């Protein structure tokens, strides 16, 4: 009954996994996976190239979100936006990296749950404002940061934006994922109210906040610990 399923295209997935494990150049991995998948599905070479080409043109709307804010953000950075954000956060004595990012997580997740997904994002919020503030809050407490810790704080700032966005937006009824789920379930003969799907997402959304906020607390403790070790070594 399942004999009609062609399993050879799974080789494309194998190429992706092997490529990332071997730390090959990601762009080459993707192109190799495209070639292997196409050949495994027995497409002629010109057909593979045409499929790639039309898909490449069709999906060129994807990078717009990243690219359009760059000119404005670049100008503001040149005029000292990062330095301003850092000076502002350093004035708040109770601010720690973990607390700052927890507040951002809360705002980001709540805003996304109300459909305001554009309040945030890596090019226009994390790079110019959130990451510099998170670094400055740590520096205000412990002084100069070791390079590895500085990078960890930046990575956590990006991670906080992602967690807030993902687990907030799916609680919003009009979000694409909810519409997609409704369409798929309807095709299978199950009628589900979008509001119920959004509501049953809330326990996970709350858990995501709690777990990530706890990880941010751990980051605060790590900052203190490494700063103590650092001064200990210098003495």
């Amino acid at each position, binding site marked *: 009954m399942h004999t009609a399923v062609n399993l050879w295209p799974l080789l494309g997935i194998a190429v992706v996994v092997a490529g990332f494990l071997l730390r090959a150049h990601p762009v080459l991995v993707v192109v190799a996976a495209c070639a292997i998948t196409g050949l495994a599905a027995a497409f002629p070479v010109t057909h593979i*190239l045409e499929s790639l080409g039309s898909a490449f043109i069709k999906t060129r709307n994807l990078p717009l979100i990243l690219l359009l804010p760059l000119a404005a953000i670049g100008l503001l950075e040149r005029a000292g936006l990062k330095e301003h954000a850092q000076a502002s956060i350093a004035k708040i004595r109770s601010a720690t990296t973990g607390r700052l990012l927890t507040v951002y997580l809360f705002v980001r997740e709540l805003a996304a749950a109300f459909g305001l997904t554009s309040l945030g994002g890596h090019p226009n919020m994390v790079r110019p404002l959130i990451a510099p503030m998170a670094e400055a809050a740590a520096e205000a407490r412990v002084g100069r940061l070791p390079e590895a810790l500085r990078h960890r704080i930046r990575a956590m700032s990006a991670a906080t934006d992602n967690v807030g966005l993902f687990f907030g937006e799916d609680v919003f009824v009009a979000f694409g994922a909810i519409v997609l789920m409704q369409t798929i379930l309807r095709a299978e003969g199950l009628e589900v109210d979008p509001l119920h799907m959004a509501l049953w997402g809330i326990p996970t959304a709350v858990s995501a906040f709690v777990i990530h906020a706890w990880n941010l607390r751990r980051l605060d403790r790590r900052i203190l610990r490494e700063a103590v070790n650092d001064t200990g070594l210098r003495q």
Partner: protein
Amino acid sequence: MISLDVFYLLVGLLFAATAVMNLRDRSNPRRVGTALFWGLYALVYLAGERLPPLLAGLLMLAMALIAGFNLVRPGQPQAVPEEVRRASAERLGHRLLLPALAIPVVTMLGSTLLKDVRIDLRGWVGPLLDPKNLTLVSMGCGAIVAFALACRVTRATPLQGVREARRLIDAMGWAVVLPHMLAVLGLLFAEAGVGKAVAHVTTSYIPMDSRLVACAAFCVGMALFTVVMGNGFAAFPVIAGGIGIPVLVGVYHANPAVMAAIGMFSAYCGTLMTPMAANFNVVPAALLELPDKNAVIKAQLPTALPLLGVNIVLLYFLL
């Protein structure tokens, strides 16, 4: 009507400028390769659908080879010293935040208030903003408003803005095109029937005779499939159709709303763990100038893995 074509044109011109500036930059050790890479990408945006598919495919292949053999490098544009930036920050103060906030504000206004605004241009009547791409078009308008405000606040010329955009594009390098190429791979996977093959393998070889195993297989399957495809939307139909509907709803009488909601969130746990979701995980690492391209994923693992466990438990008890 303001449609995506306007922004394709702008981005195409921006890439063309990046190419020309790199070609003329003697501090860039790989200026020809770099210029060629951004020049070809400019062509994708400027020519768009007019490009024959075969040519576009060859063009994508050429870009991948240029990037894959490390011929795309940033130049060393003269940076503004930190003291100057600090002084400028003190002088301008909170005014610097205004343009940055314009992007979300205009996006929100565009996608809510201006949604149904229609215009009449010498007999041509139609919506102001392209309704099919409302959010993206609104965000584009927001970016333009922000750019105008940024020029005003910082007293810089638009040309300086283009130079700054080039600096940021240079800093990210090939990471800019990775999400785009992964989306192409996703479409090819769909065309070649990879989803069907995975569904066949997962549903044929996992025993579903205990409720806990079925819940765990469903959640982990969603996450793993998303790790491979880089997109929860690709995983959901496959795993919901393979395990969710026949086993969880069919055998264990789960509430479909619970199955769907927790299933999609399990897929999102997968999104947090994969370099295939490049625009969330790899691009920010490049944007924040982190030496380890997987640093963001590593920061997300301690949230994603426990949350996946919580999802399994929640599904088991709410079923």
